[in-house]
């Protein structure tokens, strides 16, 4: 266990420090250009020029809408999801589709799924692809989630599709979790993944998305996936692999060879940076009125002719 600090003065200092650290990762939008596995940061304001123009298509990732959550710091998660969709709808270049990387709901309740479905109709995108979070599979191992939002390609719920030369893979890592463990893909899904990727040329850009991080962000809080290393061993031969996850309600990134890992912000509430609080619960210690700087959406653009993807973060505020 982490050492607890019961001194109130220290608590105040720690809270302030925690807030500043969190502000550092909330920040304003940043454009990430990925070229040959190396990330280059650009200010979002500089996006209007050539970098945006050479994109052949784009898609947007949203995550962790937690419909049904109603406590501090966000008693109205429907409103912030709506604001996220409005942000996407207002863009001049429309995304080809949306990805929702899980925790659509807070407690897997039918009325929460109903609300989520209703609000998602407001998105001006032809389609949304979903993977479940652990909050979406409570009590029924995801039966209701898969019935409503599944692609129904494979019995286990995982799927893949090709879009304008990019191969997309949606993985499920929130079922059959074991005591003391992290997220889990399981032998059946890994066998399918190996086969799914086998026929692709190494030049094919690959985007893998799943709810829990497919890399070990912070084991003390269970932020990882037990058997993700096996999945990564199948992906290492590709020239450009982007792994998009949710779950931890903040942006964290890591580059490992040609594989770049990203976690997304939530549209509902932020969680503390790894180890910066006693537990990974909702981050409440935020300045009044600043919630929207912690929430946001992610746009990913395919850069024409470069087999590269550019990732742009956008906050609600």
């Amino acid at each position, binding site marked *: 266990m982490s050492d607890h600090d019961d001194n109130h003065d220290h608590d105040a200092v720690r809270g302030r420090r925690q807030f500043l650290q969190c502000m550092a990762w909330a920040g304003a939008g940043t454009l990430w250009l990925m070229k040959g596995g190396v990330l280059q940061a650009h200010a979002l304001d500089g996006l209007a020029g050539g970098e945006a123009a050479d994109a052949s298509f784009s898609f947007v990732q949203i995550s962790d809408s937690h419909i049904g959550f109603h406590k501090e710091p966000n008693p109205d998660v429907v409103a912030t999801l709506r604001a996220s969709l409005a942000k996407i709808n207002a863009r001049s270049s429309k995304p080809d589709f949306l990805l929702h990387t899980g925790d659509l709901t*807070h407690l897997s309740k039918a009325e929460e799924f109903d609300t989520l479905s209703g609000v998602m109709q407001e998105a001006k995108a032809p389609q949304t692809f979903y993977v479940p979070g652990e909050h979406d599979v409570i009590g029924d191992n995801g039966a209701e989630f898969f019935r409503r939002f599944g692609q129904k390609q494979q019995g286990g719920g995982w799927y893949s599709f090709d879009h304008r030369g990019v191969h997309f893979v949606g993985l499920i890592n929130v079922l059959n979790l074991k005591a003391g463990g992290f997220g889990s893909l399981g032998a059946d899904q890994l066998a399918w993944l190996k086969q799914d990727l086998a026929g692709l040329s190494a030049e094919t850009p690959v985007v893998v998305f799943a709810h829990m991080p497919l890399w070990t962000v912070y084991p003390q*809080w269970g932020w990882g996936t037990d058997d993700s290393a096996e999945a990564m061993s199948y992906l290492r031969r590709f020239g450009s692999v982007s792994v998009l996850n949710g779950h931890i309600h903040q942006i964290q990134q890591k580059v490992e060879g040609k594989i770049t890992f990203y976690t997304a912000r939530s549209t509902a509430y932020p969680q503390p940076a790894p180890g910066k609080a006693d537990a990974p619960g909702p981050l409440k210690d935020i300045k009044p009125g600043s919630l929207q700087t912690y929430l946001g959406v992610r746009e990913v653009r395919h850069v024409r002719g470069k087999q590269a993807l550019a990732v742009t973060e956008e906050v609600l505020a």
Partner: protein
Amino acid sequence: MSGARAWWRALALGVAALGAGPAGAAGKVAEAKVEIKHFAFMPEALTVAAGTRVVWTNRDDEPHIVVSAGNRFASSKAMDTDDTYATVFDKPGTYAYFCSIHPHMVGTIIVR
């Protein structure tokens, strides 16, 4: 003075009831509590007499679920803030459990 004596007697009876399990003097089932706070079960390991009813209470803002490793006792539903879940442990043994949505949260009930 008599008030203090009554208090000590009540305490002694309480301890006896905990030790005696379901056959306790009042015929009531002994109860033991586990608090869920800061994404942890407290106490993480709890030892009780056979027949004790164990009550979990979620003190976090996040939901938690009590799930038996190896399905040896019934799982709870999703417990929101201040929700409780209780089950009676009749047979001696060591029962490992975890939270199915935060599986790094683990606990043990040892029934003697």
